[in-house]
């Protein structure tokens, strides 16, 4: 049921309803998207000048970053996925562990009454302008 409609061995896409609803033969990578979205599309100057040349240089850096992450993962170097500094998943794991062993992870908590005094203006993210 969950399998998308495809003809058996060839992997041919089958037309769906409407335009472009073919199975994608291969998932588009970020590089594929960047190649088209950054370099292509109709160019009509808007009211705000945006310099995309420097942006294109930046994408080279993004591509390098993606490539190195993929390569590292292939090599099994994925430590950051378990490091709370880099990964929200790891943070969530630590949080759930803290629930099981509350005394091991003693952190300031709003219910600790006296802590409130340390942060008089509760919402810090408000603009300071």
């Amino acid at each position: 049921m969950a399998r998308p409609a495809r003809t058996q061995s060839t992997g041919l896409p089958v037309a769906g309803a409407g335009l472009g609803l073919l199975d994608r033969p291969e998932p588009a990578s970020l590089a594929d998207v960047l190649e088209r979205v950054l370099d292509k599309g109709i160019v009509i100057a808007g009211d705000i000048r945006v310099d995309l040349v420097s942006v294109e240089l930046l994408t080279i850096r993004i591509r390098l970053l993606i490539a190195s992450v993929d390569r590292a993962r292939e090599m099994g170097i994925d430590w950051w996925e378990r490091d709370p500094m880099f990964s929200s998943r790891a943070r969530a794991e630590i949080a759930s562990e803290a629930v099981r062993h509350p005394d091991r992870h003693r952190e300031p908590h709003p219910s600790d009454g006296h802590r409130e005094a340390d942060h008089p203006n509760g919402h810090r993210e408000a603009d300071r302008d």
Partner: protein
Amino acid sequence: MTDPAVWLYAVRPAAAPAVPAGLSGVAGEPVRSVCHGDLEAVVGTLPPSLAAQDGVQARLADPVWLEQAVRRHHHVVDTLFRAAATVPFRLATIYRGDDRVVELLETRAAALRPALETATGRAEWGVRAYPLPAGTPAGPGAPAGTPAAPGTPADSASSAGRGAAAEAGAATGSGAAAGTAVATAPTTGTAYLLRRRTELAAREQARAEAAAEAAELEATLSQWAVAVRRLSTDHGADEPVPAVSNVSYLVEQSRAADFVACAHRLRERLPRLRLRITGPWPPYSFVELPG
């Protein structure tokens, strides 16, 4: 207070189905439509922090924001493209308010209408071809005695080491060695150089064969396309080898299945190439303005 900044995603026929509710844009803003005559612009109003003169430029310098903006811009364009003919706009095309967008639809209608015609009922398909490493398929004409391991840097490093070691021990019979060394491991500097030359020739031949196959690939696929655009094959360090062909094909919706089937058949017919087929894309590469 600065004027509003309106990000333009795409232009469609005004008769296109409504922009899906809940579709959001580069800054998470709701995406909406601005109509004028038979044309519709799909836009989003940026938050004040981005509406400032250099707001967007500054954010584009942040790789995380840029990546997100690229993905979101594409998501909007792609969603529209799946429902109706869509002319994608280049990333970061921004106008000071809806009035300016209406002005654009009015003054550039002569350019936008043909672009919409090009886009109607068609999709872009990308086919990238990479040469397979020399010697991998070991075809009948492949030169003997060069295993040419895929890990090229390590390979050349180790053979250089071997060459140096062999030279040290082979000072006596170098003349005799040169004749036989090509078939086995090199034993002298001369033999090493000979082997190196064979390797380079093999690589050169593989490259030429791949180029010939790429020409056949492009010629065959072009038969299914209404237009063809060559994209850059210089693709930076995220690919192990540069592509020999990177082409976008604009294909009628009715022929898309045939086009993809043809590409899959070519995969088997062209042993020197590895193909990467992507699509259907909104016609990003086919909507440039004349002149």
